[in-house]
């Protein structure tokens, strides 16, 4: 499955700077009962986005006019911690989120985003705090993320960011990771033969 390539995207950035937003909060349990990926936009941040009577919660950032339809979220430390559920990333993607910008992300969540073409940008905490303040103002919430030049452009400022070349290439080209790996099938077979010969109890 090829992914939508990520080169340069402009859009609103919604701030959500609380620490330790876990994947249970991003995608609650009642939305995990499917055997496909559909309908997860409904479940995204469900208990925060909706009031008990089912109405949209006006206090939640993605419900506010200034950040409705955001392409990015600027998030607090350890975003995506907890459960491995990839449903959290599928939901973000279905809501139109193309990149998350934070100071640290949980490991499994990081890999899940990468495998779905969602860019994760890690910035130092002071830089992130400043960016968070800028996008918290409705009039400066519009930003541009350029993966090729590794820059976030906001009003009056350019913030550079780092990313591994391997991850960047996969995102820019929208590569099918499994297809790429299977091109190395002969190498895997050779390794496997040697590995199982040396450790026969693994057979």
């Amino acid at each position: 499955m090829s992914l939508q390539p990520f080169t340069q995207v402009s859009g609103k950035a919604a701030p959500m700077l609380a620490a330790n937003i876990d994947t249970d909060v991003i995608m609650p349990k009642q939305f995990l009962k499917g055997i496909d990926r559909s309908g997860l936009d409904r479940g995204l941040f469900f208990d925060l986005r909706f009031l008990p009577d089912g109405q949209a919660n006006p206090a939640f950032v993605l419900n506010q006019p200034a950040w409705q339809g955001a392409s990015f979220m600027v998030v607090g430390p350890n975003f995506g911690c907890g459960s491995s559920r990839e449903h959290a990333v599928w939901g973000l993607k279905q809501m139109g989120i193309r990149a998350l910008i934070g100071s640290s992300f949980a490991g499994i969540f990081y890999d899940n985003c990468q495998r779905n073409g969602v860019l994760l940008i890690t910035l130092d905490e002071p830089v992130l705090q400043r960016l968070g303040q800028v996008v918290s103002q409705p009039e400066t919430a519009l930003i541009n993320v350029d993966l090729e030049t590794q820059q976030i452009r906001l009003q009056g400022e350019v913030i550079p960011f780092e990313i591994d070349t391997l991850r960047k290439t996969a995102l820019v080209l929208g590569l099918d990771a499994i297809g790429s790996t299977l091109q190395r099938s002969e190498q895997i077979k050779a390794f496997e033969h040697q590995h199982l010969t040396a450790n026969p109890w693994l057979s």
Partner: protein
Amino acid sequence: MTSARTLYDKHIDSHTVCRLDDQGHVLLYIDRQVINEYTSPQAFSGLREAKRGVWRPGTALAVVDHVNPTAPNRIAAMSDAGGARQVSYLAENCRDFGIELLDILDKRQGIEHVIAPEQGFILPGMVIAAGDSHTTTYGALGAFGFGIGTSEIEHLLASQTLVYKRLKTLRVTVDGELAPGLTSKDVIMALIGRIGASGATGYAIEFRGSTIDALSVEARMTICNMAVEAGARGAFMAPDDKVFAYLKDKPRAPKGVLWEQAVQTWRALHSDADALFDREVSLDASALEPMVTWGTSPDQASPIGARVPDPQDISDLILRQDMRRALTYMGLEAGMPLSDIVISHAFIGSCTNARIEDLRDAASVVRGKRVAEHVRAMIVPGSTEVRDQAEAEGLAAIFIDAGFEWRQSGCSMCLAMNDDVLAPGDRCASSTNRNFEGRQGAGARTHLMSPAMVAAAAITGRLTDIRHFGARA
């Protein structure tokens, strides 16, 4: 590169098919994977759509654990249509791709991280990846286990490999004797409280020290299991004679000459004496007290003798806001003694703490006593084998006599994907691993602690210091 290597390095080096760049990415060979019904469906669908096969079906073991009911009378039928569809699709996938499935009526069924060691499916030196974050549990056997998402499950099924980036290493040294009543749960909760919920993000943790050596293999699993709650993407403990004794004669463990050969190889599985770690932390186990969480992140934990902390005392703005939000959700006042917190539910279960030793520990606390009038107390054994064993030992009778529900095995109220769900405002003393908002039910409140502490709370109806609970049988 120096010749001295950590146990983590040894696992990665011995499983590297090839290096992919000079930034630490390798193609990593995976020896085993465990598959459940809820994170795997889209991976199998992906294989079907791309007309790809499973590389080595015999290296995968599937089990139903997350969505199944735990009602005492076990039947195959499920009233939850979504869960039932996941279970039937798992069966269909296992049949079509040649993967062994332990279905709901199988005597070997249970929570994946309980049954995989129980079956001898996990061996020292292995690298295991699975679609569940608590795959770190397998570190207690000298294996390297880590959680992955569904796309990675598909990648692994198709190629037996993952594109993997090498982690940094953190060594946690735990020395000293645990006071009576304290368990390995208190050790890992204290560590998480100390280093924070992202304190080990980007790291693999190796645990060592006299405290670890003295623990049973099952108790060690509790520590490795919860390492992920500090952000660790892997936990290690060098395998010793206890591990070899635990594994010997397990159904899938090697036998005869092969066993001898394997053990000889496994004895080399330890960090070299002069291996360097990127970071070191040490913990004095003799100074620990029983731990409980008061917030909505596993690092929001304190000794039971403490009071609910006051956000005013926190200088860091984000942490202060975090604590306020947590206390509001939990319905707690700053300054109140933790031992004054009244519960409505007590739950002993999960891949963290529902093995036979956990149940023995809890039973020794409740023997001859009664669950408090206002508390609903449940025991959900980690596996059907654990359940059978507990019945054979008379533990089930102790729990039932005390007023606990004695249920069938599954993940159950740890994440409440099945029908074991708390209502808004319910407050649960829980032997599980996550106290996240809504984890056990929307609006429900979770306090994490050891199984013995849950048992004591069930009896008194409030959070209780196990050390002052009175004589234990």
